[in-house]
């Protein structure tokens, strides 16, 4: 019997110790601040979501807490779909009690999420949604990237002044707010500069055959094709353009910067040029250097395979800007956090200095990138 008792006592003591061990760190640590993340992890634009997500995770390693509480990222897949994006956001705001939403990556989805954030009075920060309507007239919608009126203007100037193009054809994915908007801004600036729009052809996200549209472009005698669409379409268009013997330069927007453009496009995307947010060659500041280092480590460890893109950098920046605003607001309350975000000035992010302008938009410069020997190559920087 005494032996039995001894064993029981020992067990009790062990159990108590285990309880203490388990409770110890939790008791010392404050409850985490939940940050909701809504990104396209699957579907036609999965590459954007996955790249942004890697960027956010690295940023979280760089700055794991705010207000003395750990920051916890809760990811929801929006499947590149508007309805899914809205549902995921509602769940993150109501069930997970997220203090803010990071994402979505594309304008259409951001337009679906922004009203929900507005209603809940909790900020949404999109890393890469560039359509102006996303933040227009909203108090709680922010972004850490430039917007399309600027991007379209830059593209038009590059086409007109550097490439000496005078007759532009435009291929628009009519299913995406981003593509429709950006194409319109490009055409406005291009005609203002004195150029002509030789052809305007349309397609839908998910289309795989562009032969008919490209036939029209070829016949129009255009000397440049502007195609501000997403990477899969861009890659297939580039291949089919070459197959049909269309040799004019191809110019696109920030949506083109995904490794799939090169993998799917192959030799057909050599010389493919686009406006983008970021190129690793142009990084400045300590924070960016640290981010780059961590990314290179992950790449060496085989955790990521692709080269660093603007989506990684802006994913990180959306997180870092939020963490910075949390610290300045001193609270997680929506209205105060919003005010702190709106007051972001000269924040040294991964993608460069971030100033949040009047409409919740970041004011930034754009870079022009070109595919050269299967890599994204830096061409030039264009300032606002």
């Amino acid at each position, binding site marked *: 019997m005494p032996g039995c008792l001894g064993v029981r006592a020992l067990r009790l003591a062990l159990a108590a110790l285990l309880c203490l061990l388990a409770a110890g760190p939790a008791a010392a640590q404050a409850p985490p601040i939940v940050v909701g993340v809504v990104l396209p*992890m*699957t*579907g*036609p634009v*999965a*590459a954007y979501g*996955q790249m942004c997500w890697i960027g956010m995770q690295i940023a979280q390693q760089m700055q794991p807490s705010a207000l003395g509480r750990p920051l916890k990222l809760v990811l929801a897949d929006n499947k590149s779909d508007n309805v899914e994006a809205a549902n995921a956001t509602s769940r993150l705001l109501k069930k997970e009690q997220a203090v803010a939403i990071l994402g979505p990556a594309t304008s259409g989805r951001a337009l679906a999420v922004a009203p929900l954030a507005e209603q809940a009075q909790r900020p949404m920060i999109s890393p890469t949604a560039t359509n102006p309507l996303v933040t227009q007239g909203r108090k709680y919608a922010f972004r850490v990237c430039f917007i399309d009126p600027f991007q379209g203007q830059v593209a038009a100037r590059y086409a007109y002044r550097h490439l000496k193009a005078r007759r532009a054809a435009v291929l628009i994915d*009519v*299913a995406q707010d981003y593509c429709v908007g950006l194409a319109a801004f490009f055409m406005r600036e291009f005609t203002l500069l004195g150029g002509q729009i030789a*052809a*305007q*052809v*349309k*397609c*839908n996200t*998910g*289309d*795989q*055959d562009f*032969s*008919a*549209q490209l*036939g*029209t472009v070829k*016949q129009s005698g255009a000397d440049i094709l502007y195609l501000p669409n997403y990477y*899969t379409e861009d*890659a*297939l268009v580039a*291949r089919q353009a070459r*197959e*049909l*013997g269309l040799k004019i330069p191809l110019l696109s927007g920030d949506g083109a910067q995904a490794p*799939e453009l090169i*993998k*799917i496009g*192959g030799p057909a995307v050599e010389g493919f040029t686009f406006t983008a947010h970021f190129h690793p060659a142009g990084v400045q500041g300590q924070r960016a250097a640290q981010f780059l280092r961590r990314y290179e480590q992950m790449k060496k460890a085989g955790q990521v395979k692709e080269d660093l893109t603007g989506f990684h950098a802006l994913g990180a920046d959306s997180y870092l800007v939020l963490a910075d605003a949390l610290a300045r607001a001193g609270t997680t309350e929506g209205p105060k956090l919003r005010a702190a975000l709106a007051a972001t000035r000269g924040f040294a992010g991964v993608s460069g200095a971030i100033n949040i302008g009047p409409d919740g938009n970041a004011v930034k410069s754009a870079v022009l990138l070109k595919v050269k020997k299967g890599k994204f190559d830096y061409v030039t920087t264009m300032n606002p």
Partner: protein
Amino acid sequence: MDGAQLTQQIINGLTLGCLYGLIAIGYTLVYGILRLINFAHGDVLMVGCYMAWFGAVQFGLPWWAALMGSMLLTALLGVLIDQGAYRPLRRAPRISALITAIGVSFFLENLGLVVFGGRPKAFLRPEVFNHIYQWGSVRVLSLSVWTPIITGLILAGLLIIIYRTRLGMAMRALSRDLVTVRLMGIDTNRVVAATFAIGSALAAAGGVLWAMKYPQINPLMGVLPGLKAFVAAVLGGIGNVAGAMIGGLLLGLAEILLVAWLPELAGYRDALAFVLLIGILLFKPTGIIGEELPE
């Protein structure tokens, strides 16, 4: 639009139509025998593409070996789907099997997302298919020349199976009356399994040709070709193999010419297919060359 341009667009349309037709044959085959619209057909096609991708890109097999392997594995998948999902419902109302087919479709898509990941993969186009023939300003990819040849061979082989073999005879008998055929001592389950195997192998072949033409694959890639091929099958007369081919060619041509002639309406290209579907169902539900089966 000048002559060369029109020729180019017609060639583009026929190329696309051939692919629709090839995929539609698989639909029509299963429908002809089981009266089941196998909505998972497009997703079987997707799996076939991934099999070929693993073979060609991951294991470095030559394209024809990858294609054969993919057709074989996909045929096996077809048999498994039939065994697991459709056979238990053979005596259930037809609508139950239809709903199950939609379930299988979602299952395959989401399984694909988990196993293969959501980002598109680049598909290989072998050198043989990568040449460009040029006459004046008309340019044709050699793949577009090979596609009708391969499709024709497959179609011929299929017609031989259906009309010249005992299996084909059993399939035709089955399409008239499953219960009576069973009473005659024919193992109907085996015949149905063979039908699924052939239909799925065709989906794989169609998928691989599709992926060579539009060289990117993703887990949701089967949805649209699947739906379009379904429209093509109905257009031609569902249940009729030659009709599926004709329906496919017509649909491909109609889509390309719509975009070529009326660029303004290019956004309605997918809608066109479904308007055609509604139209044909309203005015000639048996399709262009489909016939009512004798009761």
